[in-house]
């Protein structure tokens, strides 16, 4: 396998992680635990397929996916900020809710409990060259750009400064006149939209929705965030690393050289080793999970 193909595969696998990790960093920096990434992604995937199916345009699908992420982000925000529910519980609840809702509407719209019909997507069959097909997918570019963009927003804009402030010390931020809930609402809503785009990418790349198709990718993104010490750039690198491990696993599984059980362990072992040894102490935002009064 050529190096370009390897790289292209790493990037294709990393895109959903990058979107979800970008969204997760945003919410967690604002002090809201982001366990619902998986749910945001799945809702985005489903809404994108609905939109693309009824309009025939992947762009409408993308828009629908983002709106779905926004809606579930707002549900998360209302429950955890307005009603100060435990953020971990809210996150898990949203994940379960989205699994149920997508399945329900899948049955309603397409009369199937497992997958939707084929819809229009960005990567039309280019017959032969998947590398070029990947490059022609705007969501690949958006995913790659999401991390530098997030870094810029977090460290170069007043909004980013406010997000970091409410995540570290909401009381202090409040005395400076920052409206803590409002900043958190914004961060969580944006987080939902970003993570949903990861789901949109997955679904449109497959040209269909499959029940539970995110398959734990939201949690891998969460691991990447912790691995990256809540820093957008480091989390992005962590995503690429996880994707590279997965690609390696796929490539090595084809050869008979190493027992497949060992090969399939690679991503998990890498995660544990990285979290336990390589990374310096991973310090979350000080006010993570704490609601501001």
């Amino acid at each position, binding site marked *: *396998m050529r190096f370009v*193909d390897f790289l292209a*595969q790493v990037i*294709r*696998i990393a895109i*959903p992680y990058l979107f979800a990790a970008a969204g997760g960093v945003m919410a967690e920096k604002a002090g809201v635990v982001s366990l619902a990434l998986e749910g945001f992604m799945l809702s985005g995937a489903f809404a994108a397929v609905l939109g693309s199916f009824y309009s025939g345009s992947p762009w409408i699908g993308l828009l629908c996916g983002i709106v779905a992420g926004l809606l579930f982000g707002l549900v998360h925000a209302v429950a955890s900020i307005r009603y100060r529910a435990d953020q971990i519980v809210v996150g898990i609840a949203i994940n379960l809710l989205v*699994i*149920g809702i997508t*399945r329900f509407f899948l*049955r309603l719209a*397409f*009369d*199937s*409990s*497992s*997958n939707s019909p084929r819809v229009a997507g960005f*990567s039309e*069959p*280019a*017959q*032969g060259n*998947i590398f070029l*097909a990947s490059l022609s997918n705007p969501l690949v570019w958006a995913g790659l750009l999401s991390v530098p963009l997030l870094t810029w927003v977090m460290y170069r804009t007043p909004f980013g400064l406010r997000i970091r402030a409410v995540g570290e010390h909401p009381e202090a931020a409040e005395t400076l006149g920052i409206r803590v809930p409002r900043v958190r609402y914004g961060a969580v809503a944006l987080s939902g939209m970003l993570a949903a785009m990861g789901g949109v990418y*997955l679904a449109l*790349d*497959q*040209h*269909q929705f*499959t*029940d*539970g*198709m995110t*398959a*734990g*990718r939201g949690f891998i993104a969460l691991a990447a965030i912790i691995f990256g010490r809540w820093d957008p750039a480091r989390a992005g690198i962590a995503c690429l690393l996880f994707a590279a491990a*997965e*690609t390696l696993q*796929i*490539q090595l*599984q*084809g050869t008979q050289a190493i027992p*497949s*059980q060992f090969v*399939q362990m690679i991503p998990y072992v890498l995660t544990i080793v990285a979290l336990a040894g390589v990374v310096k102490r991973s310090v979350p935002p000080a006010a993570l999970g704490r609601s501001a009064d």
Partner: protein
Amino acid sequence: MRKLLILVGILLFIHVTLLFVRPPGAAEEPEGEAVDVGIVFDVGGRGDKSFNDGAYLGADRAVETLDARVRFIEPGEGSDREAGLRLLAAEGMDLVAGIGFIFTDDLRELATEYPSIAFAGVDYAVQVGDDGKIIPPPANLAALKFREEEGSFLAGALAVLAGGSKRLGFVGGMDIPLIHKFEAGYRAGVKHVCPDCTVIAQYAGVTPEAFRNPGKGKELALSQYQSGVNVIFHASGSTGLGVFEAARQLGKLVIGVDADQQSEAPGHVLTSMVKGVDAVTYDAIKRVKEGTFKGGVYSYGLAEGGVGYIYDEHNKRLIPDAVRARVEQLKLDIIAGRITVPSTR
């Protein structure tokens, strides 16, 4: 806080009220000697165009021709499965069927608990004791198994003869013995007609999630196709949908599984290795109705028509007549016992 309590109270009230609402028609039970059948579906549920739909079709036929009354339960996540079976057993159904290997332990447990009810498990994983002998299932439990390796053998032979490459691909879902049967048969089929061909076999994962991860399936297939593979046989549920997508993108071929998957990527589906879940389900219901139901292990292969491959107007142009004749001959050889197909790797 009080507002919340009132809200919860109202919701609870509505919930409890709805428990007593019965849709019109639900109350009237047809009289007579009808068989009551309860079926619990596997992950994926109805509309998967494959496994569960097969069981549904078989049950549907039983409703029409055998006057069976069938109740379906589609479990959500994990723990609901056992609860679904238990509910049906407790309601005193004549036959309770679990569709999928995943019900194995639950069925065995319930069959001992309700000895007067007939149980059936499609793809039931028969246990093997320490001495290598098969531990028979309880007397009221029929283990309905397929010899997938026989159908997969033909798929492998077909892949070599019609694919035009010495590298053959296999994408499995969860890395478990049931899926290894597909791989083993496929490998044997490939080697039988082309001893120096290589089979690249890959699995999507080690959890049930591996059956519904099309993203992973697509990446596995893309890397196989890029390494010179022309035909991939998948046995991976919804994960396989990604394999079809990859075949479309690169203009390659796929062999579908369980049901005729021609429509997933028209023009790219060489054939499908089909399992007669419908016939088997129907058969079990029929035997309960006739009072001839017996527990034990039932095995359906090429000879019984339990497995097979698709050859029709959609894939005719992909399969030359000479190839078709060769594969048909292999089929006869397997049925006659001249070829024995391994079921383990």
